[in-house]
Every structure is written in structure tokens, then in C-alpha cells.
């Protein structure tokens, strides 16, 4: 994820309570955070609620934010991961949903169904994996973040992420029932 233009200044202003800066940061990161959360929880409604919590916490924590050189997005992903973990631990009251949301730009009902099925299948498969694997797969391959940023978001080393991604992919293939050998055999690739 590319940092926003003048991001450091924005963060500093937001930390001083500048609403416009907070709003700009929100606009820049809201969809990415929502996408990450939506693949880690059971429904888009819960994802909306948790996304709201992430940005409320961002507003709370911004006055104390210290620029360590790590991308701001990585910091937000860590907040999001913590929120998701809280949600799964059941310590958190599930607030009333904000809306009955689905992607609004999809007008093809058949395409929409296929997409929903694919999303549901991936959600289900991801949910069976360890939390680290889920975060890595979503950030690295769905969001397309570089190793370094994923490492910063997960608090791990770049090399650790490189090794873990192979294991995570293998685990996901198993969870999806798409073991590569079985698939190539069934396709008749011999």
C-alpha cells in the first residue's frame, strides 16, 4: 500500500486533533482495513463494526503515535488484527450492525453470486488457519503488500515472512482441498 501524499504531516496534524487530516487518513486506509477484516470474520456486517472500532482506536492513539519508520498502514493493520483477535475471543460485545452491506458496484446477479461463493469459500478456508497465516495471506497476496510491510504489520522479520508464506500457502491449499498433486492428477496432467 502506497503511503498517502504528505502522510507524515497528515499524521502529525491528526495527532493534534485536526479533523480534516483524520478524515484524509481514514479515506486512504478505510477500504484496505475493511477488506483485511472482512476475510477474517464471518460477515461483512461484523467487518464494518470492527473497522469502525479500528478507526476509533486510531483517533485515540494518534496523539501518542511515534513514527518508527514503519508504514502507517502497518500500524493500522496491527490494530485491526488485535480487534479481530478480540472479536474471536468473544470478549467483545458485538455491536448492532451499521448496515446490510454488500459490494454496491456489482450489478450482475450471477457474477455476484459467484463472487460471494468464492469469498465465502476463502473465508471458510482462511478461518481454519493460524492467525498469522491468515494475516500473511491476506496482506501479502490479496492486498499485494511487499514483504517488508507485511513484516512490519505482523511484527516479524522479512526473512520470517518469506519462509512463512510457503507454509501458509500450503496450509491454505489443504484447507481449500486443492492439494496441488491431487489437482494435477485429476486434471490429467500426467
Amino acid at each position, binding site marked *: 500500500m502506497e503511503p498517502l501524499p504528505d502522510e507524515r504531516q497528515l499524521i502529525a496534524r491528526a495527532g493534534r486533533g485536526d479533523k480534516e487530516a483524520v478524515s484524509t487518513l481514514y479515506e486512504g486506509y478505510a477500504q484496505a482495513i475493511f477488506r483485511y477484516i472482512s476475510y477474517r470474520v464471518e460477515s461483512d456486517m461484523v467487518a464494518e463494526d470492527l473497522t469502525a472500532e479500528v478507526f476509533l482506536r486510531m483517533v485515540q492513539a494518534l496523539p501518542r503515535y511515534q513514527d518508527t519508520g514503519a508504514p502507517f498502514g502497518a500500524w493500522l493493520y496491527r490494530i485491526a488484527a488485535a480487534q479481530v483477535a478480540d472479536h474471536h475471543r468473544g470478549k467483545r460485545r458485538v455491536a448492532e450492525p451499521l448496515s446490510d452491506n454488500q459490494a454496491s458496484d456489482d450489478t450482475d446477479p450471477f457474477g455476484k453470486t459467484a463472487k460471494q461463493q468464492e469469498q465465502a469459500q476463502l473465508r471458510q478456508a482462511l478461518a481454519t488457519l493460524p492467525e498469522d497465516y491468515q494475516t500473511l495471506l491476506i496482506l501479502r497476496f490479496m492486498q499485494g503488500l511487499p514483504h517488508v510491510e507485511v513484516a512490519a504489520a505482523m511484527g516479524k522479520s522479512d526473512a520470517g515472512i*518469506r519462509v512463512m508464506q510457503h507454509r501458509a500457502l500450503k496450509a491454505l*491449499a489443504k484447507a481449500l482441498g486443492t492439494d496441488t498433486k491431487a489437482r494435477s492428477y*485429476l486434471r490429467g496432467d500426467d
Partner: protein
Amino acid sequence: MSDPEFTPQEQELIERLSNAPHPSLNPAAFEMIRGRMLDAMDNPPLDVNPRMPGRSTPLRLPYLAALAAVLVVGIGMGVLVANLPREIATTTPVVPTGVTIAAPTFTPIVPTQTLQSQVIPSATARPEITNTIPASATVQEVIPSTIPPTDDLPNATATLESVIVVEGPVETITDNIVTIYGIDIALNPDDPLLTLIETGDVLHIEAEYEADLTVIVAVTVTIVDEDVNVNPDTGEVWRDEGNCANPPPPWAPANGWRRRCEGAPGNANPPGQGQGNGQGQGGGNRDGDDDD
């Protein structure tokens, strides 16, 4: 995402993930969250999930400060007590009632005659009690309280070995050197796996770093993603190529191949119609999956 660090199978999965539906916040929800966030800025304190709802935020600071002060004082007193000379700590409670004092101090030591004879001459602080009880003040003379010289301690750092574990796809193979993530690792030139490893294979290598030689020397090498069997007696290697055209020798377990290809006589089943799923694990030198 086409990247040489991934196998074709991994790339297939990565492509699926990158093409996965991208759910997005609808405009109403987007604006609602923005509104909540900006409202929260107008209404401090912004504690959206207070852990102790009954306590107001301003009280927390003095409470924490008091707690910190108590901790500091406690730690300071602990340090002071710990640094007091042992003589003082042990002689202070000695009261000439004898039995009660002697019991705790001598518990770990069998009160033999020998012990008594060692104690008596050294008890100078309270000579009046040494005749009746083996006073606790003398115990310190028996139990060495000094730290042994550092020369007697094993030098732990000198014996540590540098063990490196590298797992990833092979980028290049030059003679007996394989490169993974830009790291050159030397394999035993006689290792039969060398004839088998191909670029792109995912290896799990445990190695040692030899500072003198400035190379990393592999100790154990495992091919993670392929079904490979090595005859431990002869070093002969057989590799499952994922089809039925390359039958394994009798010594190779080749479970996956046999399940896949020996289900029907004479390999009559065309690919895709056999009963096996091709996921059998080879035995022998494989260590199985590492799906931690």
C-alpha cells in the same frame, strides 16, 4: 503475481487470492464510520471500550502513580534487605532459647558431631550460646556463601554452535552449492540428493555456519514438496514425477505413486480416473510436512 520464488502450484493459489473478490465498505457505512470517528474527537475522553466503566479517566493517573510509588519503595526495600551483610541477618534473631532458632538454620545439614566441632571454635559473636546450641551465626562458616571463582564456571558462550535453518525454493545450483534467498549453502558433494534437486524445489536445510571457512555447511537436507525416496544402502534416488511413467524400484516406499498407479492392473486407468488422490507421502528420507 509471477515470482520465481514460488512454485507453479503456489503461483496458481496466489493468483486465486489476488483475484479474490474485494469487498468494500458501501458509501453509507463509510460515511457512518467517519461520522462516529469525528464525533469521538469532539467528545473526549475517547475511551471507546473502557475496562472499568465506573472509574473516571482523571482518577487513573494518580492511582497509577501511587501504585508505581509503592512498587518502587517495595523494590528498594527488597534490594536493601538483600544487600545487608549476612552476619547481621543471621545473628539478629538469635535468642538464647536455642531450639527454635537452631531448627531452621540447620535443616539442610545433618547435625553430626563433626559439624559441632567446626562450629564451636568459630563462634565469636555470641560465645554464651555456642555451648548449648549450634547457633545460627556459625552456620555461615559451614555453608560457603561466596560465589565460586568465575574460572570454575563453564564458559557457555564458547560451546554454543551456530545452527541455521533455511527453508525455501532453490534459486540456483552450482556444483554442490545451492542458493536459497541469496544464501549459498554447501551440501555434501556425495549427497545423492544433489543429483535430484532442481531449481524451484523447496528445501528445508539445517546447517552450521563455519566462521573459518565463511560458508554455510548443510547438516540435513530435506526436499519439502516432492516425493523423493533415497535408498540408504546404495544412495540410489527415485523421484515421483507425478505420473505413472516412472515406476519406483522395489526398495522405495513410494506410497503416493503406488496408491495412484497400482490401483488398476497394468496402469489401465487413464489419469484422472484412478481411485487414489496422489497425495501419498513417500517414506525413507522424507520427514513429512511441517505445517506448524
